[in-house]
């Protein structure tokens, strides 16, 4: 008797477990018609469904969702489903496995430095024919942001949420000391050292800071007229003297307290917080923080070009949008991309909301952008700096070389290793990776 009862009990629990598992899989499709992302070639009412993977969380994610909603409401042929896929790096991982499994999206956001790797494996569609069909051309797009769009004469990505590093300035602090915003490395050195406050062998205030990232050393290499990779893509493009100059510049100032180099973990948040609370007067940081800084600082806040050495130069950042070669809905997906580029309710509104750089010439000339820049000149500085935009870290093997460059930065900035031998080791490692 007991035996029977217990086996029935066991069977029921087991079944209910399986049922729970199954219904968990089924129910989202029926209950969440609004947000459901079940991939189907055509959604309800004969609409073509376009899957769009992106990496925007937080406020910017909300702005992007709002843009997608506006598109879906604007017409009744295409339904775009935007899905957050984690950070830029995580999206790359997901995209790699999804392309292999043929479960990939129609459109994907790609951090600009990863685009070449995907272009090289022929998984990104050439958008030139689509552009032509829509009577548009590459010249309609912002030139400074096109560095990661054309590979092998194919237009494989369009700039979308793009940013650059820029110099954020606590003008109040500089004014107190009678200092002008630095325009060159030498001026930066003078200003930063003048801002340092040291009491009882402890730094109360530093001059400037920058997040732990390859972005800023690369910017400085370009400013010293070097290239990160050489033109043949066989080695790094700056010699030992130039590399030493860049890192010696940083290291010397780190030693005097002019530069605070933050710890690796959460370095971006640390430097933002130090800037807001007046622990540093200047900050190298993405244009992406302008909006939050403007709302939260209690001093006169301005932006300025990154200081020049031989020339002004800045790398670009952020992400582009690519049409996936494996998409079965390319025309529908293109319709969304086209709309995002030309419709004032599309990309333009997203740019106004988020503060990313306007990515078409039409946007730059639009009244809305002009009004925004009149109100917030800090944003115009970011756009103006684009005339000096140059991305020299372009190579299929960049993600691997980046890891090695990080190691070199760590050795120099944290472990006080001698600069020259460290860069020599980095060069050797880079050449090995570039050959592969």
């Amino acid at each position, binding site marked *: 008797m007991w035996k029977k009862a217990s086996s029935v009990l*066991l069977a029921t629990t087991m079944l209910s477990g399986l049922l729970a598992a199954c219904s*968990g899989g089924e129910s989202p499709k029926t209950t969440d018609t609004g947000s459901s992302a079940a991939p189907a070639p055509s959604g309800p009412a004969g609409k073509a469904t376009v899957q769009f993977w992106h*990496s925007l969380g937080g406020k*910017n994610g909300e702005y992007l969702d709002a843009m997608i909603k506006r598109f879906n409401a604007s017409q009744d042929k295409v339904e775009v489903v935007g899905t*957050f896929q*984690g950070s830029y790096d995580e999206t790359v991982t997901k995209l790699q496995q999804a392309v292999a499994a043929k479960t990939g999206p129609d459109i994907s956001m790609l951090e600009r430095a990863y685009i070449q790797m995907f272009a090289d494996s022929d998984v990104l569609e050439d958008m030139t024919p689509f552009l032509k069909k829509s009577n548009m051309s590459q010249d309609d797009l912002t030139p400074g942001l096109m560095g990661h769009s054309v590979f092998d004469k194919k237009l494989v990505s369009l700039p979308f949420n793009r940013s650059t590093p820029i110099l954020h300035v606590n003008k109040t602090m500089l004014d107190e000391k009678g200092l002008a915003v630095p325009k060159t490395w030498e001026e930066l050195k003078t200003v930063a050292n003048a801002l340092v406050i040291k009491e009882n062998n402890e730094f109360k205030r530093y001059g400037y800071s920058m997040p732990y990232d390859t972005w800023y050393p690369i910017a400085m290499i370009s400013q010293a007229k070097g290239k990160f990779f050489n033109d043949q893509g066989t080695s790094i493009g700056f010699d030992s003297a130039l590399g030493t100059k860049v890192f010696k510049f940083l290291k010397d100032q780190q030693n005097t307290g002019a530069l605070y180099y933050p710890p690796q973990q959460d370095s971006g948040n640390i430097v933002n*917080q130090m800037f807001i609370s007046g622990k540093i007067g200047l900050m190298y940081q993405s244009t992406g923080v302008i909006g939050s800084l403007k709302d939260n600082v209690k001093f006169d806040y301005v932006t300025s070009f990154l200081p020049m050495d031989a020339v002004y130069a800045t790398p670009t950042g952020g992400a582009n949008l690519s049409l996936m070669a494996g998409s079965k809905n390319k025309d529908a997906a293109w319709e969304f991309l086209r709309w995002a580029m030309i419709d004032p309710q599309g990309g333009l509104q997203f740019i106004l909301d988020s503060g990313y750089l306007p990515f078409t010439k039409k946007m730059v000339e639009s009244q809305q952008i002009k009004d925004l820049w009149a109100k917030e000149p800090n944003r115009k500085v970011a756009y103006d700096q684009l005339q000096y935009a140059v991305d020299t870290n372009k190579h299929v093997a960049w993600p691997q070389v980046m890891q090695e460059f990080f190691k070199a930065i760590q050795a120099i900035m944290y472990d006080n290793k001698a600069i020259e031998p460290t860069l020599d080791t980095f060069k050797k490692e880079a050449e090995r990776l570039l050959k592969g």
Partner: protein
Amino acid sequence: MSFEWKYVRAPLSFLLKAIVLMIFIFPFLWMISTSLQTFQETLTFPPTWIPSIPQWVNFSTAMNAGPFLTYARNSIIVTFSVILIQVLVMIPAAYAFAKYRFAGKEILFSFVLLAFMIPGQVTFIPVYLMLADWGLINSLLPQILPFMANAFGIFLLRQYFMQIPQEIIESARLDNASEFKIIWKIMVPMSMPALATIALFSFVSHWNDYFWPLVMTDSAAVRPLTMGIAMLRETEGISNWHIIMAGNVVLVIPILIVYLFASKQIVKAFVYSGIK
């Protein structure tokens, strides 16, 4: 010498415990404090500990930032299905490994140990490709199926079962008890502390898991809470830490509740020795 030591030991042990407790509890307090602050307060330095006005609204802001009801439901279904199936697989498997003799037992058990040692980061691509091939990517099954057998659980429970004297099982067999009855009436009740421990570990690791759902799910409809909270972060720019921490508090509460119920059993599992 030993006399003096006695007086030092108690306060010292108290002090060490207090330090360890602080190390563990500090991040929790920080999280709760931040979850109740305004954005401005999260940015001030030195940091505020007690928010001037507790911002309960952060919780609703966090929960309204996405389909959090769907996320919560998915988290609950996935975690509880995993635990249930694991327990059902684990008990007979551990019993067989502990008490039976059969050909290939050692080899099979070494497979279990192997599974125990290989992290998900190694297997996720083949598993994803296989499940995509079966058309399961838009269901919750990719978060459940790969975890049906808990290798660590089988291992731990086997050790536990081996401590139970063979005589007890033999005498039950003499009384004509079926194998099922032996498991259900003898093995399971005697190993309750171990089972509770394994279930709790499993609960915490699946409830908190970020990596596996990230790589196994492509749409919001099948994602758990952890993914929803990751979405609160800014990709570039300054994150709203007060909102993210409010999300984290919501994520952690069920773990604390489950722990409250299971803690007694867990302590037992570690002090258990022999049969009473």
